[in-house]
Each structure stands twice: as C-alpha cells, then as structure tokens.
C-alpha cells in the first residue's frame, strides 16, 4: 500500500533513476529512442556518423591519390568507381565526412548558445531589451539563411572557422524565437516569482530557475538546427565554400562530379545519399523527441498515471 507520507519510502530507489530525474533531458531522450521512430532516427544517424568517424581508418585507398581514369565504372578495387580526377569514390566518401560533421555540430552549438541567450533574455527582461533583440532577429530572418552566410563569407573570405561562425549565427534568430516563447511561459510561473522575491539577480534567475526548464525545447531545437547545419554546410561546400580542393567533402564531391553523372553516377549518388540519410536521421530523431516531450508518444499507462497524479492543475481558475 502506498502512503506518500511515509518517509521510509522517500529514499531514492536507485542512483541511476535519480540521475535521470535530475537531468530530465536524459529521460526524454531515453524514451524517444525507444519509440520506433526514434530508434530508426538514431540508427540512421549512428550509421552515417560511423562512416564519418571510422571511415578514414578503413578506407582502402588514400582519398587524394590519383589511381585510375576519371569517372571509371565500379570495379573490384573501386566498388563505386572513380571521380573526375580518377580518385576512389569509396575512399573519398569514407574520408570526407568527419570534418563536415564536426563543423555542423560546432555551428549548431554556436547557434543554440547565442539564440538561447538572446531568446531567454528577451522574454525575461521584456521591455526595451525584448524589442531590440527581437527586431534584430526579424531583420536577420528576412534574409534566406544560405544567402546570408554567402554574404558574410564573400565579404570576409572563406575560412573554415568563419563558415562555422556564419552558419551558427544564421541559426541564432530562429532559435531565439522558439526559446523566447518557451521562456515567456516559464517566467510567469510562481517559482520564478519566488526567486525574484528572494532578491536573485536577473542573470541568476535565468540561469538557475528558467534554463533547466527549457531542456526539451532546447533538445528539439538542437536536433532541428543540426539538420539545417548539415544541409547548409553541404550546400556551401557545393558552392565552393569548404575545405581547400584536394580534401574530400561530401558536399564538394557532388559539385565536382556532376559533370560525369552519365559516366559514373555513383560519384554523385553516394555522397548525396549519405547526406540525405544523415539529415533524415536527425530529423526523425528530433521528431521523436518532440513527440515524447509533448506526450503524444507516451505509453498509455504512463499517460494515465500522469493525468491521475496531477489532476488539480486544470482546476485552478
């Protein structure tokens, strides 16, 4: 028989469960990957990440070596044929992912960090700060993301760190909007008021009281922005803003080899497919996380218990 007033029962069941409780995002992530949707997404992402990370070590040839005639058809030693300079397509695909991934992740981190800081402070501080931040966001959002990044790069030059920074900054406005509306909701909660009444400074209120409650929208945003980062990074590489020429890059490969599409289509199809699998994977996984967070994909018995345990919530006038 359960009696919650009994202190004996209050001790945490196990340290693992307690850890998940403290970091709610872990619990959400755990539930998400257990849904069919989340499992598929995670599988696709892991597959592509594995290619990018392990690839350079297992590639049969050097990605830069000129080994055969340009656009050679697939054969025994070149399973996907060769590219426009006669380099091995398989080896270039295996070796051309890790930097792209790393850059995409870095850009996402920058975008989330800047966007969150802007969105949360706009929503919490209100007034002039809100107006200033959100109007800036509106202006930046008026440009297409790719065009904005291209503009920055053509002015400042195509350095790798600059690409990362440009892509990251172009993410920030969209992140700021989402986080602002999530913060507007949380900052009206009474526990935020209590913190204010304890004389906490605004920065501390945002960091300690508000931010922990934003873990789910942050996760969904991070997944979404990662998807876009990959697309934009690959797109920029396709347009010539990527690593310097001899280096392999999935985006660059599509551009380099499209002239020989009729001779060896694999040189284009394989990098395009890897990019597609990765973005589809991150997208599905993000979707699964969002659904779990919203309670759409909660298991029925959990849904019932949640309803039954917090019934008074709706009753407050």
């Amino acid at each position, binding site marked *: *028989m359960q009696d919650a007033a009994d202190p004996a029962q209050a001790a*945490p069941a196990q340290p693992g469960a307690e850890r998940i409780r403290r970091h709610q995002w872990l619990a959400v992530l755990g539930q998400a990957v257990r849904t069919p949707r989340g499992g598929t997404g995670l599988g696709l992402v892991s597959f592509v990440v594995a290619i990018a990370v392990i690839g350079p070590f297992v590639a049969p040839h050097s990605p830069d070596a000129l080994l055969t005639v340009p656009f050679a058809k697939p054969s025994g030693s070149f399973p996907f044929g060769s590219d426009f300079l006669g380099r091995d397509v398989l080896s270039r695909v295996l070796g051309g992912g890790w930097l792209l991934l790393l850059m995409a992740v870095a850009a996402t981190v920058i975008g989330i960090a800047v966007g969150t800081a802007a969105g949360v402070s706009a929503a919490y501080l209100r007034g002039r700060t809100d107006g200033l931040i959100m109007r800036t966001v509106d202006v930046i959002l008026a440009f297409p993301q790719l065009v904005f990044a291209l503009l920055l790069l053509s002015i400042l030059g195509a350095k790798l760190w600059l690409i990362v920074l440009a892509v990251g900054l172009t993410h920030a406005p969209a992140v700021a909007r989402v986080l602002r509306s999530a913060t507007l909701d949380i900052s009206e909660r009474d526990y935020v008021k209590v913190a204010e009444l304890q004389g906490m400074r605004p920065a501390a209120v945002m960091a300690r009281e508000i931010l922990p409650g934003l873990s789910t929208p942050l996760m969904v945003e991070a997944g979404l922005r990662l998807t876009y980062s990959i697309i934009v990074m690959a797109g920029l590489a396709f347009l010539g803003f990527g690593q310097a020429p001899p280096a392999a890059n999935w985006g660059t490969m599509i551009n380099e080899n499209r002239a020989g599409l009729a001779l060896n289509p694999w040189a284009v199809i394989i990098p395009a497919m890897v990019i597609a699998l990765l973005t589809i994977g991150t997208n599905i996984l993000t979707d699964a996380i969002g659904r779990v967070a919203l309670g759409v994909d909660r298991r029925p018995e959990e849904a019932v218990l949640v309803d039954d345990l917090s019934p008074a919530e709706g*009753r407050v006038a």
Partner: protein
Amino acid sequence: MSANGAPAGAAGNGAAGGPGDFRLDVRDLEIRSGRHGPAVVSGVSFAVRPGELLGLVGESGSGKTTVALALLGYTRRGLSVSGGEVCLDGVDLLRLPPGELRQARGAKVSYVPQDPAAALNPALRVGYQLREALRVHPGIGYATEARILGVMREASLDATPDMLRRYPHQLSGGQQQRVGLAMAFACRPSLIVLDEPTTGLDVSTQRHILDTVRSLCRGYGVAAVYVSHDLAVVSELVADVAVMYAGRIVEAGPAAMLFPKPLHPYTRGLLASVPAPESARRLAGIPGQQPSPGHRGPGCAFAPRCDFALDECQVHEPEQVVLAGRTVRCWRVAQVAASVTERPVLAPAATVPPGPPALALRGVSASYGSVPVLSGIDLDVPSQACVAVVGESGSGKTTLARCIIGLHQGWTGEMTFQGARLAQGARHRPKEVLKRIQCVFQNPYTSLNPRKTIGQIVAEPLHRFLGLSGRPQAERVVGALDDVSLGAGFLSRYPDQLSGGERQRVAIARALVVEPDLLVCDEVTSALDVSVQAVIVELLRTVQAQRHLAMIFITHNLALVPSVAQVAVVLRQGAIVEAGPAERVLAHPSSAYTARLMADVPRLAKAAPPP
C-alpha cells in the same frame, strides 16, 4: 433509493429493458488502464430515476470523472472499459456500435464539462454553437430561431438576438456555463452528466447555475449525474450520493440520510473537512494520500488512512453491506456507526492582540496599465493576527497580495511595514524586508521548480537571506520540513513525486524557514481537495498562533474564514466593502454585499433533503 446495490430483482432483468423506473442503471462498471493493466475503476453500480440528480463525489484521482465519461460511452486515452454495463433507458451504451453511440451522444446523453471557457469554441458565435447542437440531431429539434431562443430561456440566458451574435469571450463565466447547459439540454436528453460545472465560478453565480440545473432536471424529467469534489454543493442539490474512493463506491445512499450520519470513515473524514462559514471550527482533514491505480493493496484502499482500520482491513477487500438505508464498503461499519465524532470548536480568539500593526496600507490604489484594479485601500494587519481578505474573482484580492509582496509595481499610496515605508517593487526593497515578508502562492504545481529537490528548494532562501550553508543550513531545512509534517525523507525528492497538498506544505516550509514576520497566503487551498484543504488551513492556523505571525489569508471561500482568521476584510471591485472582526463580519454583516455572499455560500445540508 436508487443508488448502489439496486434491488436484486432489478439486476436480474439484464439488457432486456431494465427496471422501468430507472433512467440510468450502471452495473459493475470496471475500467482498466490498457487492456490488462490495473483497474482504475471497479465494481461501480448505481441508478438514477428520471428528474433526479445523483451526486458522484470524491477527491481528485478517485475515478469520478472516469466514471462520468463512461456514462457517455467514452474513455480517456489509454483506458478501456473491461466490464459492466451502462444502461440508459434499457439500452447498454457500452455495447452500441460506434454509429449508434454517436447518435446517442448529445441526443440521449449529454455532457456539461468543467471549464466552459475551454469547452466553447472561441472562434464561433454563441448562436452558431447552439444551433449546431440541434443540427447534429435533426430528428429531435428544429434549429429555428424561436427554438434556439427557447433553449436559451430555459438556461436563464438573455434570449436576445444580440446574445446569439456574441463570441464566448464576450460572456461572463456564468453565462458561458449557461450556454453549456443550454446546449446540453437542447435535445431533451434522458441523461445529463455534469462534471464539476461550477468549479471556478463565484458563489453567487454557482448558486444560480445550480438552481437552473435543478429546475431543468425536474421540469423535463432528465436524470442527471453531478460529479463534484464539493460536498456542500452536492448536499444542497442532489437526492442521492455516491462517494468514490480509489475507484470504488465506498458509500452510497439518499443524501438526506448520508450527510447527517455518514457510516464510512472516508465519508466522515470528507464531511469533517468541509468548512462552515458560521462557526470557527477546527477543520479536520484526512492525513495521507489516495493510492493511485496499480498501487492499491489487496484490502480496503482506505485502510492506511483510516482510524478504525484493523489488520484484516489491509488484507481483505470489504464486502458491500446494506445498512441504515445505504450501502457501505467497510469491515468496521458497526464500530463507525457506534462512535460519535464531534468536531472540536476553536477557543474564540476574536480579540486581536494590541500593539502597532505589522503592516499598514493607506490609500493604496493599483492598476494594470490603464485598468484600475484597486482603489483607496486602507488596511491594518495586526502584528500577531490573521487577516482574511475575501472577494469574488476580479475583486482585486490577488493584486493586493502582489502589491504587498512587491511583485506588482503599478500602485500608489502608502504601505508601512513595521514602521518603515515599503518600496513599490521587490527589487527596490532591502533584503531584510524581503526576508520578513514571505508568501505562499495559489498553485503548488507552478510554485516549486520541477528541476530542484525539495531540499534545494527549502534551502534556497536560507542561502539567500541568511548566508547559511552546510550543516546549519541542513538542520534548519529539516526543521522546517518537520514543522509542516513532511520530515527529512522528502529532502531528495522532486516536486513531481509529491501530491498537491505535500507541495503546498513545501511552499509553506520555504516561506517559514527564514522566520518571517508577515506571511501572505494567496488562495493557497483553491487548487486542493477539501480533505487536503482542511489539513493545510489547520497547519497555517497553528503556525500563525504558535509563532505569533502576522498573516494575510486571501481567499474566495468565505467558509474558510472563521477557521483561520481573526479579522475579515471583504473586497469588491477593488474597494473594501466591509472590515472587522471575522465573527462579526460573517454573522452580522453590515453590507448587503457580504450578506448576499454569505447567503450564497453552499452549506452542508444537515437534515432535510433539498426541497
């Protein structure tokens, strides 16, 4: 008598037609979580005659809404009906094919939800929504203008074309609920299910809605099931009552017999929790918490909270017995019946200790933008007494609290706290002042940060205000939790592991841990069940008396006032209507407004059934 355990002869009729004099006959209803999960509701049987109302009462989580929805052949996501029948005019709704069930809903059985603001479509005009209710069932009524106006008149709405053109947000809460009633009664159903339709409405509005419900049911011979947690409301309204606990009906019978002499310990506890506006009674709540589905033991689900429980209560599920005109599920019913419970009456503490007031307000006016909310409030809060601020929604009582604690800055006038002027906003007040004025908020579900442990939550003010950390901090946190009878076991728990009442105690502990001089309680019990409300009010009363605190207790519930406060202040549209010693204000109100509020407060019917 038409409640649980209908006569055996009636039960034998089966689906063939049901007993003629019952409109609704529910037998052995069982609802599970999933297909084979734990039972959420089991063994629920009751019956209702035409024109009569049955009250289905219980705390939140008792399964009363689940049963109510099953009466419409509906279950919430994740639940399924695993047994029993719901016979309406002899037809088992649970076995109807989906098409026929859809036909029956609205036409034969209709539903009035709890929150009218959420139930009406905000984008459609009232007239359209009323017309739609009739149009769905073309065989029953014609959606002519005259018919719709007639439907509105029945629900005591202004039957004017202007009203039809309005949108839901242009109506008051009471009018919205009347539209809900009009829609429910429009097709002349056999059964109406009302799910707490007056929760969230002011007492006077509530009284009018209840009168309308009663006369409509009588007038059209409609059977009604009225779901509510508010026993006082139910006792005034219904002929029969069924009390639910942990998914079972524990006691059921005619209201006139059950309310004066309850036989189940749970019913007794519930009734002892109901505050009465006339007397300064000490409220007795029910300690502990209702077990959730899947955590109910083999025996009586109430046994862990029951004063009468023996060991066998924990092991064997009590049989249903018929006694004194009602059915009861309790092994110890004979002992309960023999025992007498008298609620102890509080010693009259009407005298306010002399001395300068802790807080004095002079000419305080407040507004939100250009909308005035408070005008010219003069208020003295004695340094060792509790002042109850009473008012209906929109009276400005919460704004008053927010001005005092410094969350609302748009006020003018003067506030003096312990002889010193209070700055408008909390940010401009010295830390020492912030420490001395603590508050407890209305909704315990949003006042605790869900990402922090109870220990962290209670320790925060100690760290902020007193710079305490380490051992001394930990000791005071445990001390504060002990004071609200939670104890050290709660330190490492998170708010979502606590019930509403426990959360509110944590909020109280957080306020008391820094030993404030003034405690502001803003509607602290309005989100809680009556049994929990009683415990919290009693806790606040003892804390206030023992620590000689000044306290402001803000509430819409007049009945709570004598149990906690020595001084009462009645607020209406931002101005004080009446102020004085609580007993005098409630017993001999000098303003017509207070007198009307007092008259409209629902009271437990003592002996006579409703007229």
